[in-house]
């Protein structure tokens, strides 16, 4: 396995991918530049606005503007806390369900039902039950994002070969180590898949939760721009969302690549 050749190829693929993306941007630019539509500014205008809005403070000013701390940071914070809650609950519950069939039988129908509840619509309920503060937003995000991680963990844990567990038991390994060194690593691919899905769901719910009773955040900014018919900022917020999703995915991919290195290698051997 010659890693330098591999990384060369990766660079090439990325270059082709970004080339295509740039091409698409160009098409977008040309199409919008000619239309003069109020609703569809050109990508150049959008990026200008984006930079102006959030990244114009220069190196001395710490690059990001004050608006960044109003529009972006609160959302990041809510998203992160919500996701962390969702992940901890989801993984814990998933392992419980996967290892104790009776628990699974008891709560599975209800969990499936709760999973099917449409997140944005829970907003009025959440407002009533949890109030209008950050708690409401974080719990909405956590509630929406917990399902994929829970169910992925559950099915991954169920699929952990019994041989692994028995091997550990014969070695008289404590249950804590069985959990952390056998069950969780063995289920880690499934868990990571769940983490990815839950992140994109979390972003959807973040936006939904910031639609009401908020005074900052991307969702709030988006609605305000939309309410005041400021289409350029509105697009900036949309692009910011896309970038947020892209970057969070990048981060997760990075972590996953580290943690699941063995799995990626194993897959490449079996190909």
């Amino acid at each position, binding site marked *: 396995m010659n890693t330098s050749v591999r990384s060369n190829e990766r660079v090439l693929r990325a270059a082709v991918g970004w080339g295509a993306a740039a091409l698409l941007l160009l098409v977008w630019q040309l199409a919008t530049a000619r239309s003069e539509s109020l609703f569809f500014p050109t990508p150049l205008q959008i990026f200008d606005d984006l930079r102006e809005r959030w990244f114009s403070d220069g190196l001395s000013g710490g690059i990001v503007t004050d608006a960044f701390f109003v529009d972006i940071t609160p959302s990041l914070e809510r998203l992160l806390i919500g996701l962390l809650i969702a992940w901890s609950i989801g993984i814990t519950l998933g392992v419980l369900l996967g290892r104790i069939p009776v628990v699974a039988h008891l709560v599975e129908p209800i969990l499936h039902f709760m999973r099917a509840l449409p997140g944005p619509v829970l907003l009025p309920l959440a407002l009533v039950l949890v109030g209008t503060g950050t708690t409401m937003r974080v719990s909405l995000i956590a509630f929406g994002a917990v399902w994929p991680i829970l169910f992925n963990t559950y099915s991954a844990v169920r699929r952990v070969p019994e041989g692994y567990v028995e091997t550990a038991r014969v070695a008289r390994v404590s249950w804590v180590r069985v959990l952390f060194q056998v069950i969780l690593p063995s289920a880690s691919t499934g868990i990571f898949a769940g983490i990815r899905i839950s992140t994109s769901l979390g972003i959807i719910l973040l936006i939904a939760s910031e639609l009401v009773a908020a005074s900052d955040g991307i969702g709030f900014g*988006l609605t305000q721009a939309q309410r005041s018919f400021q289409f350029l900022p509105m697009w900036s917020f949309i692009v910011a969302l896309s970038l947020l999703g*892209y970057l969070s995915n990048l981060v997760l991919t990075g972590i996953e690549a580290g943690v699941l290195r063995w799995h990626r290698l194993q897959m490449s051997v079996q190909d």
Partner: protein
Amino acid sequence: MDSRQPVALTATETVSVTPHAADGNTRPPGRVLRSDRIIERSIIAARGVAGVLGFLALWEVVARYDLLPRDVLPAASTTLASSAALLGDPAFLGQIGATLWAAFVGFALAVVIAVPAGLVLGLSDRLHAATATVVELLRPLPPVGLVPLLVLVAGQGLEMKAVVVALGCVWPLLVNTIHGVHSTDGTAWATARSFGWSQRTVALRVVWPSAVPSVLTGVRITASVALILCVGAEFIGGSRDGLGSWLLQQSMLPGGIDTVCAGVVIAGALGLLVNAAVTALERRFAGWAHREDS
């Protein structure tokens, strides 16, 4: 068994042939009878019912005795009664019909776009590399955040809802289809080629069937997402009809929380139904891929 017995390379006499499948399946070989499976299923079902009842009881108690910090949660009994009443209301059923239809249209749109695209991208490495970045940039866009913009372009009707649903469903379907194509076994591919089949025939007869389970998994995941997105779009975009806009109006009414709760319960039940339907579909068309489970 004399001295001319060849060395270990020959077949040594075995006591018996064990049905050890070479795939490491170490399940006891005992046959499971149909009636036993029924018994087992009913035990599981009974536990499920017990769980649901326990949950409802907990809800009832919490609501009755105001155990939550805010004393606004309607009781389980009240909510279920209003849900039942709603289900008897033809106007409300009409709203549900509208939601289901829009979710279906958007979902179908996503399938029609994503599955063929996934097949092509799965088969062509170059196209895959070329589109990867664009996909990665577009994928995280939360469709619900685009609703205001879409209302401007597509109004508040079926078109808008369908576009929101399709936008949300197209990516998981695409990813699952590509994954399905990639998971076609190399030997299966070589076997089909050894039949003297063209690339196209192989794609049609081997790659596609191999991809079906993964595609159907994508369908199962996205079907419930479709419903959630549709209701969300109606709720945020104030659509002309549908469960979401109905909930929106209820939530604006004083004391509407009871009906909102009832509507949410129905929305959840609807999601369960859709999921059950798609799971049945999956068992029917990709049962072979889930052989370990059955």
